[in-house]
């Protein structure tokens, strides 16, 4: 279904640890959204000098209610654009384009699923957990971050999961270490069929490597810098192996952000591997 370009009004701005949750009116968005979709938001109004829209995973959507539908996103301040966003107040208007990208694909049969979120990467996993459970899947969640306040939504996600394992680099909450330190064990214990992951690229690479080595299917939602978010500029590419075995520089905004973990050439991200379709040849 085609993405919408709409004006959303800020309904609520609330703090959650290091993050800010923004609720916006978004009529029609919920009906189109599946877990793993993202949206992008214009920064600074009509005449803004910050031209590029900022992308955010869709955290929650409501299709009804007084506002005729709304959407929630989780914002971590990174630079100027995200700072501007968390400074918004009730009744401010924001330009929204979405839902964008390819969502997570759900198993056809009930399956054992592990959901791994790094930092605000847990945001799209809430909807995913609900959708998986509706299909009779077992859901185990691993949430990791550098420190406790960089975790998002661990209390809430517990409700949708059979087990929740928290890791922090500094041990401020849960197991001290990384999500990948506990992943192997949980794959074994739950006899996992699928691993879903969203978080920083380094984490995704490590998660995909473990899943693939264990013969478990994985889906990773990547975060690449984007200029347009709608597929027209070719900014957001990474090397991905196609069904035909050929590596291409693929747009993560339309062919992702969710990719099969075993198809992304994680160690080559940020380069054009020499065997990529159309890679520069020695002669040029």
């Amino acid at each position, binding site marked *: 279904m085609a993405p919408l370009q709409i004006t959303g009004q800020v309904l609520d701005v609330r703090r959650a640890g290091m993050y800010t949750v923004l609720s916006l009116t978004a009529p029609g968005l919920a009906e189109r959204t599946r877990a793993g979709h993202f949206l992008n938001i214009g920064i600074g109004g009509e005449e803004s000098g910050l031209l590029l829209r900022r992308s955010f995973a869709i955290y929650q959507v409501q299709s009804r209610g007084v506002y005729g539908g709304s959407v929630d996103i989780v914002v971590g301040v990174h630079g100027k654009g995200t700072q501007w966003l968390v400074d918004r107040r009730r009744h401010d208007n924001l330009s929204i384009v979405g839902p964008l990208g390819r969502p997570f694909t759900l198993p056809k049969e009930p399956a054992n699923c592990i959901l791994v979120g790094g930092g605000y990467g847990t945001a799209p996993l809430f909807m995913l957990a609900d959708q998986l459970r509706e299909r009779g899947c077992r859901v185990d969640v691993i949430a990791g971050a550098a420190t406790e306040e960089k975790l998002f939504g661990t209390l809430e996600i517990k409700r949708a999961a059979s087990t929740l394992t928290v890791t922090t680099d500094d041990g401020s909450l849960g197991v001290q270490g990384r999500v990948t330190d506990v992943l192997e064990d949980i794959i074994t214990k739950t006899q996992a069929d699928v691993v879903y992951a969203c978080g920083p690229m380094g984490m995704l690479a490590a998660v995909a490597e473990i899943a693939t080595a264990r013969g478990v299917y994985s889906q990773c939602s990547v975060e690449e810098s984007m200029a347009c978010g709608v597929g027209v500029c070719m900014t957001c590419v990474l090397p991905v192996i196609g069904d035909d075995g050929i590596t291409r520089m693929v747009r993560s905004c339309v062919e992702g952000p969710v990719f099969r973990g075993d198809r992304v050439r994680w160690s080559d991200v*940020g380069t054009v591997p020499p065997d990529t379709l159309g890679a520069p040849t020695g002669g040029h």
Partner: protein
Amino acid sequence: MSRALITSGPIDPTVNLPAVDMSTSLGYFETPAPVFTASGCAAAGKELDQFFDITQLGGIVTKSVMMNARSGRATPRMAETPSGMLNSIGLQGPGIDSFIENDLAWLRQRGARTVVSIAGGSVEEYGKLAAKLRTVDGISAIEVNISCPNVEDRGQVFACDPNSSAQVIQAVRRNSDTKIPIIAKLSPDVTSIVSIAQAVERAGADAVAVINTTLGMVINLETMRPALGGITGGLSGPAIRPMAVRCVWQIHQALPQLPILGMGGIRNGEDALQFILAGASAVSVGTVTFHDPSAPIRVQQELEIALAQRGFATLREAIGFAHRGPDVAVIEEEQE
């Protein structure tokens, strides 16, 4: 009242503005509408068609295509800059055969006016691309992106030298149907853009597209290295608009008969009007599409309003209007 007026934004919708004849032409390419997408900012139209009806535009200018598939450059390919951005995409694309088979076929079936942008690493490659396009229907014009390094001349950019620019245009002209207008796309990174425009006109260009991006650079302060994988990149967006208007002005002044497709940082109808008044016959909207995926059609609607507000009955009357002599009637009135 025309459709555009009904959807007016900042203008008071109660004011009845007359419809403006928005038709224009670039060489023999006659189009009912003057706003185009910019090459590399609209892919081949399909994605933007989700946001607005692309057949209502003057036309879609497709991403520059080369003979063979190209992977493009390493990431990061983009850095945001004040009112603009740098890009170093590196002409990623599927190659001409796949482009014709898939993208062009889709555009034709969709009924969109299409300007195909081509890019090459040698004069010969440009000629071959033109020959390929000669065999297919549904092309309104060819835009020739000459801001490419010439592999046969130590990587010198064609667009920076009048002779190389002319050679490319000759090769394209020779291999194209005589009825297909050829638009040479110029780089602003030259000492005299007029001399390049003169060279390509003599070589057979029917129009010029002005301007391509201008070379820029950003250093990432975290890594303390260049921010882009390609080190340097092309600067675009409102930041370059005054430079683009100046280029259009200079070319129109020197070569008033040469049609110009103007672009560079157009954000709204009034920006577009500046280009028209400076001498452009039509305009492209590029980078701002990333900010607002409906920008091309919105700019077209706003341009109609901006023209009507200034009393223009046709777009054609406004082309180059800023070059006119003193407004005698007004001066006399003031002297009374």
